[in-house]
């Protein structure tokens, strides 16, 4: 007979749950018991008893695995202990922990926002999959003014590239200029910027299609809409094969809908695309004159490289694509030695050309911002270091005891690092919260659409690296310094932090305040410069003027009709038409002649065609002479010039002077100067006004309607009345207008952005610095509590003690003022050089920044100082 054995499953169960180090004895005992039970009661009972026995072992002691103490585990235990101690320390000194974590979190949030900003700058255009293969075709020309890089190309160059250089490229794409167009679908009308592009564009730019395919532009009469345009025209329905009318002229069929191109890409404004060939077909002048004219630059050309070529090679191949074709007919152009080259997509944003050279501004901006961000983070780290070292005396005893009972130095270093890491990790999560809360505001400030890339593994990788770096940076000083204490000295009490122990701390505070004060001075100067430019006499009235772009043919030839209707509503005092808005000089020309013109006067002058009431609409101011008069037929050959033009022409008595203009190959036309107006700031408010000539008849016509609203009527009342007139007279176009004062304010956007960014960083820098100072002051007050007690007993007044405790800090701030001022002066005078029309860096800015910094410091320190000074000396002296 086979020997009875216990039930297998129960055995298995036991082996599974029982801790390995107990299994042998437990199983042995159960077997022995089983054997005996078999002998006494038989197998069945024995088995049952065995099962009960096994199940009853399911209790904690048998389940719990023995923890093996191996060297690696020993480290684990120590590390968990480090964190435990670190956590207890955080809780014990809540004030310090709060200051540390809040300061670091603020610094990290700034660094993170700025990191996002830099990421956004560098990821510009990267949403296109062919990013490293796309380039824009550019031409470099040399003339007497130097090197010029042009972006607009001639039509024959496109033909030339397609016929003779196609081997280099996968696609060659031509586009029109980006202009507002009116799209109509049924009753819906919208004005959208769009481009006419070659059929390869969707594939080249790897548009994300919602409806339709990349082949959408292959039909001549087609249009592809961005998702937002489609939404505006057709709502949520599928618009494929619907008919859209462009500018009330061309009927096209929707062949595709693509997702809007993200804001950080070159073509973000392109809200619809139609075939380039359609544009050519619609414009007679292109077909008749431009296709062979090497002097007419009016298109843009982009290309995608073949897989086999690189940019340098392709650029070399197409270098003479223009020059070789100029021949005798375009001798003048050939003298300028046009060189065709490719500008890779990666260079479009940060390394683009301006005035013939790579524009250093965008990259400089990136550098500037990243340096400021790094400094703000550094300030936060300095806080941490300072507070830790300041508390070192308190913790010296702890270090002594630890060392005495056998801690190695390495272990102490680890302990302090784990403390700093804990703080940094807390700060990191807090800063994430700050970033999430502040991102909307920051996006508005930076005019971007940034998001925290939570799903991007690199984000977490960088964040981890960031935590590591900050932890090391912030924790290194205490970790290395505190762990070097000698236990005997510390415990015996002979350990004294020397007179100079606080020197590095003070130096760090000086660094903090130097950075903060520099930022404050910088901010003040930027704002002063903006204010200076804003206060500049503008020369016309911006308030209550609205501008309407004449976007379709329907607007034209209705001037008098519109004017009469608008004026009769009572909401409008004047209406006129002009070439471009008053906030820009739309047209510049040479070919002007006047009495006493010298050879060197080759500059182009602004030549703007306006209707006679333009001056009344925008309220220009006359220095001499008179305005245009509609009823005087002779005024159509009159001119109104600005002071800058008079100065440039060198006319002593300008009124009635004869000025003639030869426009390109047309006949010379003669004008008489009727009046001189005060300079109007039409372009950059930081630059001298350029000479401008206004006339009623010129070359080309007005394209903008200016309307001056009756000051007695509010804009909200006036606008519906104006709209009604336009609805009646120009029914095919949507009523879209802009306010002149808002347009003018846009000129300050870039500077205001820098100013606000600097302001933001400066405020946070001073906040972080003060937080650190607050901590230090409370530490000093605590340290000197006995001294204060004794002084009080001996008769020191509260103000005496307050001065005693504040003195050191005020001194530190004064030192940093003296360091910061020249630094700020140097950098800001560099910045000012960019602006011809700029303010002075006056002494009061430094004084203001100094007084401000001082006031904040005194306020911060005073709280602690007065608190210490008011303490009851009996209480402080009683202890020990």
């Amino acid at each position, binding site marked *: 007979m086979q020997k009875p054995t216990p039930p297998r499953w129960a055995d298995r169960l036991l082996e599974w749950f029982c801790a390995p180090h*107990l299994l*042998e*004895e*437990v*199983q*042995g*005992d*159960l*077997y*022995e*018991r089983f*054997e*005996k039970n078999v002998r006494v009661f038989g197998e069945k009972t024995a088995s049952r008893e065995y099962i*009960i*026995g096994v199940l*009853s*072992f399911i*209790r904690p*002691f*048998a389940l719990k695995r023995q923890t093996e103490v191996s060297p690696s585990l020993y480290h684990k235990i120590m590390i968990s202990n480090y964190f435990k101690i670190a956590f207890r320390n955080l809780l014990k000194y809540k004030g310090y922990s709060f200051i540390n974590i809040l300061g670091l979190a603020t610094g990290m949030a700034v660094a993170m926002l700025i990191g996002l900003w830099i990421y956004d700058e560098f990821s510009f255009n990267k949403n296109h999959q062919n990013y490293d293969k796309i380039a824009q075709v550019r031409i470099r020309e040399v003339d007497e003014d130097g090197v010029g890089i042009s972006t607009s190309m001639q039509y024959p160059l496109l033909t030339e590239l397609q016929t003779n250089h196609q081997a280099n490229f996968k696609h060659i794409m031509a586009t029109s200029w980006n202009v507002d167009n009116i799209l109509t679908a049924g009753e819906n009308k919208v004005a959208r910027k769009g481009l006419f592009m070659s059929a390869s564009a969707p594939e080249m730019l790897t548009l994300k299609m919602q409806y339709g395919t990349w082949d959408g532009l292959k039909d001549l009469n087609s249009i592809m809409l961005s998702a937002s345009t489609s939404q505006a025209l057709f709502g949520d329905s599928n618009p494929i094969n619907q008919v859209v009318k462009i500018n009330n002229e061309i009927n096209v069929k929707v062949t595709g809908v693509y997702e809007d191109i993200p804001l950080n890409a070159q073509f973000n404004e392109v809200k619809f695309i139609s075939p380039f060939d359609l544009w050519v077909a619609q414009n007679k002048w292109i077909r008749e004159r431009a296709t062979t004219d090497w002097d007419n630059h009016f298109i843009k050309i982009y290309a995608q490289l073949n897989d086999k070529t690189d940019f340098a090679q392709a650029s070399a191949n197409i270098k003479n694509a223009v020059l070789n074709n100029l021949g005798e007919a375009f001798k003048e152009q050939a003298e300028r030695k046009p060189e065709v080259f490719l500008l890779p997509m990666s260079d479009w944003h940060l390394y683009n050309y301006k005035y013939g050279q790579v524009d250093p501004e965008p990259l400089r901006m990136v550098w500037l911002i990243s340096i400021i961000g790094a400094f703000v983070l550094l300030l936060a780290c300095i806080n941490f270091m300072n507070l830790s070292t300041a508390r070192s005396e308190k913790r010296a005893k702890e270090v002594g005891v630890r060392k005495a009972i056998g801690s190695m130095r390495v272990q102490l270093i680890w302990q302090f690092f784990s403390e700093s890491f804990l703080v940094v990790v807390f700060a990191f999560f807090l800063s994430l919260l700050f970033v999430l809360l502040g991102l909307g505001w920051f996006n508005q400030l930076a005019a971007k659409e940034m998001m925290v890339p939570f799903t991007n593994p690199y984000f977490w990788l960088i964040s981890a690296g960031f935590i590591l770096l900050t932890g090391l940076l912030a924790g290194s000083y205490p970790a290395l310094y505190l762990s070097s204490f000698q236990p005997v000295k510390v415990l015996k009490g002979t350990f004294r932090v020397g007179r100079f122990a606080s020197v590095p701390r003070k130096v760090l505070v000086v660094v903090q305040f130097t950075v903060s004060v520099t930022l404050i001075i910088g901010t003040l100067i930027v704002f002063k410069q903006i204010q200076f430019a804003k206060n500049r006499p503008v020369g016309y009235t911006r308030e209550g003027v609205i501008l309407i772009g004449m976007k379709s043919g329907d607007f034209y030839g209705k001037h008098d009709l519109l004017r009469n209707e608008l004026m009769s509503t009572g909401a409008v005092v004047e209406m006129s038409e002009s070439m471009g808005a008053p906030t820009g000089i739309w047209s510049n020309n040479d070919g002007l002649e006047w009495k006493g013109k010298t050879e060197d006067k080759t500059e182009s002058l602004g030549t703007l065609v306006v209707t006679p009431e333009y001056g009344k609409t925008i309220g220009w101011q006359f220095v001499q002479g008179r305005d245009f008069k509609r009823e005087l037929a002779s005024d159509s050959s009159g001119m109104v010039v600005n002071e800058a033009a008079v100065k440039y022409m060198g006319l002593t008595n300008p009124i009635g002077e004869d000025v003639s203009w030869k426009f390109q190959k047309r006949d010379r036309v003669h004008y008489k100067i009727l009046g001189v107006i005060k300079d109007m700031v039409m372009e950059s408010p930081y630059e001298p006004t350029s000479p401008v000539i206004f006339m009623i008849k010129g070359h080309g016509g007005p394209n903008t309607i200016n309307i001056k609203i009756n000051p007695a009527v509010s804009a909200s009342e006036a606008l519906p009345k104006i709209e009604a007139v336009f609805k009646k007279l120009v029914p095919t176009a949507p009523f879209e207008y802009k306010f002149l004062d808002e347009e003018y304010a846009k000129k300050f956007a870039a500077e205001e952005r820098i100013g606000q960014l600097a302001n933001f960083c400066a405020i946070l820098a001073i906040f972080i610095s003060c937080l650190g100072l607050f901590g230090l002051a409370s530490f000093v007050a605590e340290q000197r509590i006995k001294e204060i007690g004794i002084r009080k007993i001996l008769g020191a007044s509260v103000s005496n003690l307050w001065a005693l405790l504040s003195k050191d800090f005020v001194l530190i701030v004064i030192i940093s003022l003296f360091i910061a001022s020249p630094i700020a002066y140097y950098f800001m005078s560099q910045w000012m050089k960019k602006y011809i029309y700029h303010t002075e860096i006056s002494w009061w800015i430094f004084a203001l920044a100094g007084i401000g910094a001082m006031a904040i410091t005194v306020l911060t320190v005073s709280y602690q100082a007065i608190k210490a000074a008011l303490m009851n000396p009996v209480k402080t002296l009683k202890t020990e």
Partner: protein
Amino acid sequence: MKRTYLGEFEEIVLLTVAIMGDMAYGVSITEELEQQTGRSVSVSAVHAALHRLEEKYMVSSHMGEATAERGGRRKRIFTLTALGNRTLDEIRLLRNRMWESIPLKILSALPR
């Protein structure tokens, strides 16, 4: 110093370990307990108690020899430590002292 507290079952197990001498291991203790007290005792309860006693340094243990009926597995032999010994002694002294403090009148009334 605070004396380590022993529960009733722990005390009995500890006594049994003392009784068994160098033969004290899970099953033998269980059987001895059953005989001495007449109540049914599970092996796991004894193991748990021994485990606790070892944590309290009342007993020490080492692995003994293997036998065939245990499927070739070794036993864990428990021996009383000095602390265990003293603890038992203290418990007995305490009990004795308390017994002696019972007034004679009441003591004689108790069933013998």
